């Protein structure tokens, strides 16, 4: 630092003679600084560690003079690729994330390949106690055993496949699908199912008015339209399909969706009236494994719908481009 100060002042003195009004100050400054340059020399350090290690007593050889010159030839490389190649090693340093807790299902099962045995294994046939029975669910009850109603899994499978078809069709049209699953132990089921098919989810409490009072509740979080003037309200979205995994706790959500003519799918147990939703799936809503199976099957159907939508839009854009190219060619061919 002091070396540069000295050099700064020395360069000033070299060019300062012709600076006009400030030259008087420069002369005084130069007179002051003239004798001080010797104070600012950088001292040579004592012998460096490398030479200490070799314990050489010959300090006479100057450090800079005898060093071999670096014979470096710059060869530009793709540094992004280089870092990416080293990334597995870099990821191994620091800390390791604990492995994700494995769910019973490895991948999403498809509704076409589901069997009643799988539904039975997931415990979807176990209804509620007969004293809590809702009469409207009678068509779906197979019988009674040990005081609980047993749900007929043939109906479960049929209704589940129908719900999958609806989900797939909504996803194919690019509709907004909303998964609602608010039981405390099943929030990860809702979140995983929704995230796997680019859908929306409500995993904690359903805020009443999310659909009927959307401007107040969802509006503040909705991004404004790009051509909105300041002061314009945002236009909040409403779902095109609502899938409820525990309808007993979310009756408000179902009622809101029905009021706005949004189709609903729900896992209706024997204590729920299945007629409140458009597409009930009579099944057990208490077993995490069962709810996970149903949610994953529906998510898989939504994913298939997304894939179809992507293919259709690609085909559409290709046809649009080809149409333009064809029209271009036909114009150029005009006599």
């Amino acid at each position, binding site marked *: 630092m002091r070396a540069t100060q000295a050099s700064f002042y020395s360069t000033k003195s070299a060019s300062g003679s012709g600076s006009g009004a400030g030259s008087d100050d420069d002369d005084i400054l130069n007179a002051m600084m003239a004798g001080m340059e010797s104070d600012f020399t950088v001292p040579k350090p004592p012998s460096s560690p490398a030479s200490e290690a070799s314990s050489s007593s010959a300090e006479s050889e100057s450090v800079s003079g005898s060093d071999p010159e670096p*014979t470096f030839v*710059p060869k530009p*490389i793709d540094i992004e690729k*280089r870092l990416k190649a080293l990334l597995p090693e870099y990821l191994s*340093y620091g*800390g390791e994330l604990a492995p994700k807790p494995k769910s019973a299902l490895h991948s999403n099962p498809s509704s076409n390949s589901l069997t009643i045995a799988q539904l039975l294994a997931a415990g979807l046939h176990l209804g509620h106690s007969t004293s809590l029975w809702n009469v409207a669910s009678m068509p779906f009850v197979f019988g009674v055993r040990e005081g609980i109603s047993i749900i007929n899994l043939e109906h479960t499978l049929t209704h589940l496949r129908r719900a999958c078809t609806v989900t797939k069709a909504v996803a194919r049209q690019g509709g907004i699908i909303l998964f609602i699953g608010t039981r405390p132990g099943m929030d990860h089921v809702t979140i995983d199912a929704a995230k796997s098919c680019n859908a929306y989810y409500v995993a904690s409490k359903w805020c009443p008015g999310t659909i009927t009072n959307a401007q107040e509740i969802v509006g503040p979080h909705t991004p404004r339209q790009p051509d909105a003037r300041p002061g314009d309200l945002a236009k909040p979205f409403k779902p095109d399909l609502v899938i409820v995994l525990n309808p007993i706790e979310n009756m408000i959500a179902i009622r809101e969706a029905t009021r706005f003519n949004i189709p609903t799918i729900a896992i209706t147990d024997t204590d729920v009236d299945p007629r409140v939703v458009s597409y009930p799936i009579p099944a057990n809503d208490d077993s995490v494994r069962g709810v996970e199976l149903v949610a994953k099957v529906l998510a898989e159907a939504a994913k298939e719908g997304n894939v179809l939508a992507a293919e259709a839009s690609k085909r559409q854009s290709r046809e649009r481009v080809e149409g333009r190219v064809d029209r271009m060619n036909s114009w150029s061919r005009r006599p």
Partner: protein
Amino acid sequence: MALSFKAAAARLHTVPDLPYNPRSGVAPLFSPAALKTIYTDHQAGLIDRLNELIAGTPYEDKLYHEVIMDSARSLNEVQIFNNASQAWNNDFFLQSLSASPSSMSDALAKRISDSFGSIEVFKREFATNALGLFGSGWTWLVEDKDGRLMLLNTYNAGSPHHRRRMQRADETATDHDFASQAQNPYSGASKFSAPAKLMANNSYVPILCVSMWEHAYLTDYGVTLEGRKKYLKNFFETVDWSVVDGRVFRAGGF
């Protein structure tokens, strides 16, 4: 009811193992007591603090490197970056050491000599850079986009991975002093240091580092200049050059 929360809490970071037994230290660099301070206490403490900080935030599910890169620019997550980066640097440093280190391969020696002139110059300049680091930090050997090997000092928990968090500035120094700093052998900057300003299309690939945090060398070497010089001398004898070799010559390196 709390099962999902327990499952979420379990998915946090753990301290990785070292290639040597931490209880016996790594000779001649760290005695068992020193290694206990650095690894058993400090590394574990950093990871615990990081887990505390990321629990419940979106950083919970991110891979470790992502945690560093994503929190680097954020004003709110400074502590997350500091802890994560320091733990990464510490682990990077400890994994390069070995109780029975292999010697430098010829290819690596040639590579270093190309950029520095000779291995002695490299060791000398590396030591000078490390001794010039006033305070706590890390001294790195990094590679840039031209394949040149150069030295880098990062203060505190600075990381060569993120261009804005390299923390190279000793606050008493300024950019246009770099030329004079390079001539001052006490400053820790030399002609083999990385340039003061990082070019836009450049990033650094870290190859080797040494910890110049006081807790690293305090137990065995003290705070004196001679102690730190001995620390660096022992460091060069403890580095496992085959690990360094792997980093330099991985796919893309030449």
